[in-house]
């Protein structure tokens, strides 16, 4: 623990900014704890508060902007990857999309406080074609609120945190081993979650030729082709498979209410 505080003293700005950026791009790291620690370090005079706040704000916005751009150009491909490591991938994307439908653009301001939606909000905003400058404004507000909240906790309760870290130092090696076991256990859990959800790769598939034969046969009435692209519907003149219908991925729960369960549904994207 003493080594960690020495690390903060030497590389605090880079360390905390890296943790914040890593969480912003979807990695499972606790940026909130880093911010609390940064606040305590700033209150102790180890780090300059203004410089620290600016550094973490820029790092968080950089991470969000990266996901925004990737979401804009990859659509649901990126969202699927981000949701793969969530506790419940099935509802991960739906819950995030529904949040935008209920709260609109204001979702970006509060998203960082909501587990599961915090990382999904920027790429979803990109996928839904939010204007870049509008995204920057709203993301700035949301990131500022989040950073100030946790940084403020660390800054105000510096003495209480010092008591905790002193206690941890006293516990010494035993606490380090417990902490190491906890980190290993958490990493194993996330890996297990990822492998468990690899079942999403195993879905029935059909080749184009076979589907074309089915459409030409007498069973055509039992077939429904659904376009699940998040892109391709913004420009006039965009093409789709003849006879297919749109299944809006950002509004799935609502659209599925009108979908037939007595037909074979063939999904496609780009």
């Amino acid at each position, binding site marked *: 623990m003493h080594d960690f505080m020495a690390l903060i003293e030497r590389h605090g700005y880079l360390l905390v900014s890296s943790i914040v950026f890593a969480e912003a791009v979807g990695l499972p790291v606790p940026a909130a704890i880093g911010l609390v620690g940064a606040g305590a370090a700033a209150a102790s005079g180890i780090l300059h508060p203004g410089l620290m706040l600016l550094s973490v704000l820029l790092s968080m916005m950089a991470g969000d902007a990266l996901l925004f751009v990737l979401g804009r150009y990859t659509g649901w491909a990126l969202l699927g990857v981000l949701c793969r490591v969530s506790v419940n991938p099935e509802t991960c994307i739906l819950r995030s999309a529904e949040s935008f439908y209920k709260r609109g653009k204001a979702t970006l301001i509060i998203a960082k406080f909501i587990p599961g939606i915090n990382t999904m909000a920027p790429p979803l905003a990109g996928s839904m074609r939010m204007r870049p400058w509008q995204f920057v404004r709203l993301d700035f507000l949301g990131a500022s609120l989040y950073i100030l909240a946790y940084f403020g906790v660390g800054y105000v309760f510096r003495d209480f945190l010092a008591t905790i870290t002193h206690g941890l130092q006293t516990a010494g090696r035993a606490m380090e081993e417990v902490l190491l076991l906890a980190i290993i256990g958490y990493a194993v859990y996330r890996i297990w979650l990822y492998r468990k959800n690899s*079942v999403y790769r195993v*879905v029935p598939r059909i080749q184009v030729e076979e589907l074309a034969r089915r459409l030409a046969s007498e069973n055509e009435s039992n077939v429904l082709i659904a376009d699940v692209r998040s892109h391709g519907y*913004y420009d006039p003149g965009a*093409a789709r498979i003849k006879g297919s219908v*749109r299944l809006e991925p950002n509004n799935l729960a609502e659209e599925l209410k009108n979908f037939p369960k007595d037909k074979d*549904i063939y999904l*496609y994207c780009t």
Partner: protein
Amino acid sequence: MAHMLREQGFNAFVIVGGLAAWKKAGQPLESVPGNDLVKLPTFN
């Protein structure tokens, strides 16, 4: 998404290669109707 649909009781499949494979195979396409374009949710 296909897995999501199957979990909800739909008989869903995935077209291998998507739209690109469909085009390459010379299968029929159509332009997206104008009213479908209007319905898309965007932050305009």
